[in-house]
């Protein structure tokens, strides 16, 4: 039996817009605002549903690549060992078949290790600190670009500079 979530979301949006919204008290601007935003957000969710797993894998790859670059940044031995262990931990996950929530949990853990390490380099020799901070700043560019595309349907400036088609970040989406 097929899954009808997409169809049902469409129905919910229509009902909210056609039936519920006109019945909201016009003297309650807050209620009207919340209802309009809810309808909009359900539309956003419809557009993004198919890509939730791709996004989780993108974040996972982003932090893994950042961690791999940081291994060569001249870190203190203890930091390097922690990062290395954490990277090894991520390899236990089969991202191709893992659930998005599992991928997100592993990515969050790796991001935390990197983040704490970046906090500590504030007191490291300037050369190390600069290398680490540059790696993080440079590696964050692609992730920010993906984020811009992900939220474009509900952003203030959806066609602003740097907003690429979302599918361009998820090559696996191309028909195989």
């Amino acid at each position: 039996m097929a899954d009808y979530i997409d169809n049902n979301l469409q129905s919910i949006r229509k009902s909210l817009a056609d039936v519920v919204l006109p019945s909201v008290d016009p003297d309650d601007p807050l209620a009207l605002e919340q209802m309009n935003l809810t309808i909009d957000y359900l539309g956003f969710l419809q557009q993004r549903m198919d890509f939730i797993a791709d996004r989780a894998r993108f974040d996972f790859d982003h932090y893994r690549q950042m961690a791999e670059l940081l291994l060569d940044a001249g870190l203190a031995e203890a930091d390097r060992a922690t990062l290395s262990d954490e990277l090894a931990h991520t390899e236990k996950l089969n991202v191709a078949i893992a659930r998005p929530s599992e991928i997100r949990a592993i990515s969050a853990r790796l991001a935390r290790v990197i983040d704490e390490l970046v906090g500590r380099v504030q007191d490291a020799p300037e050369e190390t600190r600069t290398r680490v901070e540059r790696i993080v700043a440079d590696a964050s560019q692609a992730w920010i670009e993906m984020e811009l595309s992900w939220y474009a349907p509900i952003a203030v400036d959806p066609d602003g500079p740097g907003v690429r088609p979302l599918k361009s970040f998820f090559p696996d989406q191309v028909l195989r």
Partner: protein
Amino acid sequence: MMDHETNDALRDAPTKEFINDIARQFPVEAEIDKCLIRKMARRAEGPFTRTRLGELEECFSKFLTETVTPDFELGNSRWLNGGASKLQAAMDLRWNDPDQGWNCETIVLRMEPKEALNINSRRREFELLRAFHGVIPVPKPYFLDEEGKWFPEPTLVYSFAHGVTKPVLATTGKVAGLGTDFGEELRGKLAPQFIDYLAKIHTFDHASAGFTSMDLPQVGTTENALWQLNRARRVWEEDTGENIPLMTVAANWLERNMPTLDSVSVVHGDYRSGNFMFEEESGTITAWLDWERGHMGDRHRDLAWTTQPSFGHYNDDNSIYYVCGIVPEDEFYARYAEVSGMTVDQKKIDYYRILNSYQLVVGTLATAYRVSRLGKTHQDVLLARLRALPPAFLRNLSQLLSERL
């Protein structure tokens, strides 16, 4: 190492130890410290349910009866929208105003939800409005329920300001004040007022104002920058649902490059289009609103905020950038320096622009996540939707940092 779920759970229901650890790590002004401690201590209390208009009227009646006069009439209560932080309602109050005698005035009740997008002090907002009433156009502050003794939460009551925040036919983004195109005629009328009022705020004689809710940072030190940076970092630590290494790179840079304060000014904290009302026909500004992020500190913080790219727009051929859609950027700085008699240090503006971008990510990513997750406001959907904003702020932050690392 704590896993992500444990960390999130700790922020949802923080222990005293967790609250105090963060507070010790990031010291801020006393009043802000009090507000943030209160926020964290009440976090596990459960979600906010929007107060009914009738309840608000009852609360206000009780407040008036017990603290002002039993002789008044209240009516025509209605909700106000706008903003992403406080719950606001308007009412008509007929009473014997000590300043004006018997009259009927529309007043605004501005109440905090259980946990707002911006945690700040109603006492501070009240003091600032009282200080600037008669100096520049601001709503007249009437009453303060600082601890939520009469109202469900801390509440400020002030006069209703008439006017609009943008021209009726304006081209603008979805958020009030962002990128508003006022048109040439209105720009000409608004620009001098816009700059002059900012200069008046920054040159205001704060020493004789009797402020009790703001600490005075020491001139010739980096104390002011540290308080402001700590405030943003502390809120990030209290609210975030994820680790973003770029944010720590930014915090590191901000800590290493704190500017020295040359003079203490009152800083409005959110001086931009969308936060002032004006009469569309005459182009006269009728009220400056949203003083909740006000503090005593560095005028460059306001200058960096007001000139932020997302608040203004370019002309058709991209040759002129209008600050807040009102005045070309070079004219803005030149007139400000002339009217205020104060210098404009571009390096300090650059610093505060990075701090402002950092703070915007803190609010729209970390706080909006935590507050909507826990259902702490009357507009959780709006806060959830703010998640669309951080990518642009992070891009801005990343660009500013990349030039300086």
